[in-house]
């Protein structure tokens, strides 16, 4: 499970760009602040490498270790 904190995310898309498995997709609709928060659409492809959590400049991402 990927958890993305919408209060911390600034919509820079670094996670979308750098995830090696293309798990994220940029949202088409901006939120109230005008920020496009990425959606982890392809979670089934996630290898839990944690690169997105390491590269998110706003500490908005948590990748859960276990599979459900």
């Amino acid at each position, binding site marked *: 499970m990927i*958890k993305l*904190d919408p*209060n*911390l995310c*600034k*919509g*820079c*898309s*670094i996670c979308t*760009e*750098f995830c090696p498995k293309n798990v994220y997709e940029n949202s088409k609709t901006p939120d109230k602040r005008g*920020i496009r928060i990425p959606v982890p659409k392809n979670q089934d492809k996630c290898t839990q490498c*944690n*690169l997105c*959590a*390491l*590269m*998110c*400049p*706003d*500490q*908005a*991402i*948590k990748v*859960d270790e276990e599979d459900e």
Partner: protein
Amino acid sequence: MEENNESPFMKYLRKDRLPNIFCAGCGNGIVLNTFFNGMEMAEVDFDSIAMASGIGCSSRIPGYVKCDSLHTTHGRPISFATGLKLGNPDLNVVVFTGDGDAAAIGGNHLIHGARRNIDMTVICINNSIYGMTGGQISPTSPQGSYGSTAPYGVFERPFDLAELVTAAGATYVARWTTAHALQLTNAIKKGLNNKGFSFIEVISQCPTYFGRKNKLRTPIDMMRWMKDSGVNKLKADQMSAEELEGKIVVGEFANEPQPEFSNELYNLIEEKYGQKSQAAKSAYRED
């Protein structure tokens, strides 16, 4: 403590001050994460860390970290860090600084810290510009780049910081970019484990000023550029100056232990006075 839905780095951060003040996509937040990752890999105790920084966007990093820190005057964090280290040599002293802070106003402190080989880890976030004050060029701005003080492009030659600090005598030196987060983590780990002056230069993105003035419109454009122009030092050493035009040389520049300043000083005091220095940790005593 760490809640289940929080970033793995949240436990080290002053959560009440988040979201951080940095612009969307600024590299500072990535460097912060890689620091914690490197610290964990180096098995350095978080409670032994004390940070110092100067002035600049990059220098605001320690303010977000739940550790003792000194937010000092512009260009002087290495001097304050020297005092910290000599006052309590048990501390793991870490300096966060920018290219303006470390290489312009603080250039002299930088080279003498390296020359002395005093044990600290200096992480210099080099975004090639003064971010905080509105995009003036810095001593590392590439030739031909634009800034608010270089409307026709920079004609000066930039410093190569990793080479400069290596020549000045630092015992661990590496350069990576924010697009090389794993390699950067590893360099920070090695820097923390080096007993001596460690310098980690991180080429980073300031989308707000450098990006806007140099037609790199988004943080992603900037990070793609960094990833694509990185050439490892081992390969770069075999390349000509023309071939290296526009490239960023990344990798390790120095990794060789030398006698360390605080050790040498304390040994000298013990040798001359036959006892351990009274100055050590005096700030922690009641008397």
